[in-house]
């Protein structure tokens, strides 16, 4: 199965489960969780099911294309279901079988790995899914996002597409993954991305302009605040994503000391919380249109009690 067919196959499977197939968000993010289809939709009582591919950038993970499975740019396949269905794990395992993975041959396990994103003010409990010892998926029940309690709970599945493809194709190195093929003609992952990985590693570690990035971070912070004041949580959130990426680049340049690091994280978190709160209010103003009647009533009641 080629890399692209793996994606197509997951698209088909989750489409049949009723997920909205979204496209990748067109901005730099460190994880599929940053996509508004996850971060923002986890907030408030509204139902939501979506699936999408998200390219992720983690500048500090660059290895100049030399590590067989660690890249600074790679793909996640993200599935979110809210409320999390009772058979969420079973659905996930069915998706593996749909990909042709024999669960009676491979050692598949859910190993505790609780997720916490200090920058998103979010945490959840769940597992990394191991196949023969390799982490191929993150599985999380969100408990809090942007400082707000999640109710109903969104369940999140994040497949590491390249790692999964290593198994399915039986190869050792991202570089050797077949991305597309027709007859004898094969295009590999290296053909598509190797040069990019090498140059971006160089950029992330040595070339990214530190001063410019600090300025960019400050600008994004100001913009987020300004946009939140104008009741525009969605544009504000885009600046949170940009700020977060600038921070990650500064980090890979070793430009932020350990003390400073904590301060930067708190600054991004303050922005995420602001966005989360504003987004919640904006959906409330609309009457939480995608919520079940009972959950909406429950949440409204809680809000009134709080007031």
């Amino acid at each position, binding site marked *: 199965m080629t890399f692209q067919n793996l994606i197509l196959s997951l698209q088909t499977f989750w489409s049949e489960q009723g997920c909205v197939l979204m496209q990748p968000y067109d901005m730099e993010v460190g994880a599929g969780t940053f996509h508004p289809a996850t971060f923002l939709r986890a907030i408030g009582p509204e139902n939501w099911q979506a699936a999408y591919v998200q390219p992720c950038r983690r500048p500090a993970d660059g290895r100049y294309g030399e590590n067989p499975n*660690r890249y600074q740019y790679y793909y996640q396949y993200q599935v979110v279901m809210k409320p999390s269905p009772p058979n969420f794990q079973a659905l996930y395992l069915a998706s593996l079988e749909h990909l042709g993975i024999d669960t*009676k041959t491979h*050692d598949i396990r859910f190993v505790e790995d609780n997720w916490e994103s200090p920058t998103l003010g979010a945490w959840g409990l769940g597992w990394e899914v191991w196949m*023969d*010892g390799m982490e191929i998926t993150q599985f999380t029940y969100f408990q809090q996002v942007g400082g707000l309690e999640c109710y109903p*709970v969104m369940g999140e599945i994040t497949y590491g597409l390249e790692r999964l493809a290593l198994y399915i194709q039986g190869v050792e190195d991202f570089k050797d993954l077949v991305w597309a093929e027709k007859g004898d003609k094969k295009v590999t992952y290296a053909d598509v991305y190797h040069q990019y990985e090498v140059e971006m590693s160089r950029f992330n570690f040595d070339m990214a302009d530190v001063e410019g990035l600090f300025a960019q971070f400050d600008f994004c912070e100001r913009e987020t605040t300004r946009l939140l004041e104008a009741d525009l949580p969605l544009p504000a959130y885009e600046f949170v994503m940009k700020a977060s990426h600038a921070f990650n680049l500064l980090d890979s340049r070793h430009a932020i000391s*350990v003390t400073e690091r904590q301060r930067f994280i708190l600054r991004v978190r303050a922005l995420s919380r602001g966005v989360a709160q504003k987004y919640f209010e904006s959906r409330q103003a609309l009457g939480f249109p995608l919520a079940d009647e009972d959950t909406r009533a429950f949440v409204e009641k809680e809000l009134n009690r709080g007031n």
Partner: protein
Amino acid sequence: MVTKPLLFELGTEELPPKSLNNLRQALHRNIESGLEQAELSHGEVESFATPRRLAILVHELADRQPDQNVERRGPAVKSAFNEDGEPTKALAGFMRGCDVADPSQLDTVTTNKGEYLVYRATKIGLDLPSLLEKLLKSSLSTLPVDRKMRWGKSRLEFVRPVQWLVCLYGNAVMPVELFGKQASNISAGHRFMSGGEFKIAKANDYLELCRKNFVLPHFDERKSVIREQVMDLAAQEEAQLELDEDLLDEVTSLVEWPRALAGGFDRTFLEVPPEVLISAMKEHQRYFHLVDKSGRLVPRFITISNIESLDSSQVVAGNERVIRPRLADAAFFFERDTRTSLAEKFGRLENVVFQADLGTYAEKCRRISELAGYIAQQLDLDKDAATRAGLLCKADLVSDMVSEFPDLQGTMGSYYARHHNEADEVCTAIGEHYRPTQSGGILPTSEMASCVALADKIDSLVGIFGINQPPTGSRDPFALRRQSLGVIRICVENQLNIPLDGCLAESSRLYGKSFGTTSVLNYIVERLTGYYQEQGITGDVVEAATNSASTSVNLLQIDDVVRTLQSFKNGPAAVSIVSANKRVANFLKKAGPKDQVGDFDPALASDKAEVMLGRALAALDLSDSKGAGAKLERLASLQEPVDQFFDEVMVMAEDEKVRKNRLSLLSELRHQFLEVADFSLLQ
């Protein structure tokens, strides 16, 4: 009374491995005490835990509470009825309390105070079905869980989402509803090897049915199965095993049907320090590593899978594929880290905060360096080596390897120091200065390493106490309790003959903030009680030793006194010293305010016994005695003159000068005792 076995099984999504066995034990205790409170008699209780279930099997459980005879005394007959024979207020109230409508339902009882009304009834015991749900609910809600979670649309919380519930009494499903699920007799087998759900006809069939469905529910049994499999495989590999019990517990919590498999990695990775490889295998992958006869790591590992795979070679190949990039990453970090020396890395510590009010790690290391030098000098060790090791000991905190493998701090520093040609003893000191890292953990192996380890710990203790943030029962973020015990163990067990108070004062001086050191000193000395208690030495001995009048606190010398007292405690020498000390103390207590003691003046001594004791005391020199044993012997040798003194001399003489002189003699004697220990505290 009917008794039958009760089975309760809570099926969940995968539970956290590090707390699984604790959850099982807590549930076991909770249910047992719940049954006791409900007065439900029962036989043996067994408990089970796998990643996907917690279960309890109660043997010979009674089907109901025993009936109870109730007897309640009411008002006296004479004050129970008014003139019309109607119940008085007192009786009416009593009847309401007993839920009785007519006085004829009450009996009377005659006591020596007269005749009283009494309510007698038999309270019928409740049956099991009506008690069970509440009992289980409270047993589950009080489990020790760090963080509970919610799932779906439910408002209920548990460790992980609940999937199924089995509750069987004999062969009957109990009417129990928990977490929105109705109990049934349907359980689930191994995720992939079994056919899925299975039905349990009788509670007693549980274990056998689990096994048929590829689940070993018994934690300890599963653990010993894994142990055997791992040892067999290691034998097949002709390798030695360093079996880590914590890791064994963790993998036991990760599988329902264990199968150990061996795999390997490229020999070239052995160039990376073994600690790194072991950490990568253990922390990230939960592999057991293997070593050869001489203890050197071999490029093989053992993993515990949770399946009897249709093709286990694929599982092995997969695991080998995982460990390779992990090790490649470690090699990458090692290569990158060794490009700069520790001395160059030190500069980056200027940006790493140790504690907001106490500055950066660079500042801390400069203090450790000076303090280690000071200690080394006191012990006649190479001062330059100590200051060098102290300065560099934390520079590896900014290395890539330590940020990826935090437990390798120190260890990596020693490798990097060696790589850049630091002296051997400096490398060892850097590598071992965090020791002991846990209670009972290994100590630094050299005196030099002990100096640096001691300096680091003292610096933290003096600083954190200095800003007035001593540890409390629940909060000890800098692990000062452990660090104090570390100070004690290093000084005592590594035999550093050095005054602790001097080190603390020097540390305070290095902070330049005039931090007091009394509370730190007391805190450390207080830890001695626990330290010795673990060795079977009682608190009175420790107190006697630490309350000596000695002007400086030297832990090694205190240890000498403690051990000597412990072995002398019940011997004749100790008995005579204790009794002499007591008599002296009693006299001194009797002395009035006028009898201010001064120096004993032999010229004023008239009685022979008085003169003798004065001479014996003058001849007594404790300072040149090597060790507490010798001192104690010398003190014991005073017994004869002391006894004679008390027999023959009238201490509280009429003549004030004589009296004062005699009291002064006793006071001196008491001081000599106190030089060694406060014998009055011995029990």
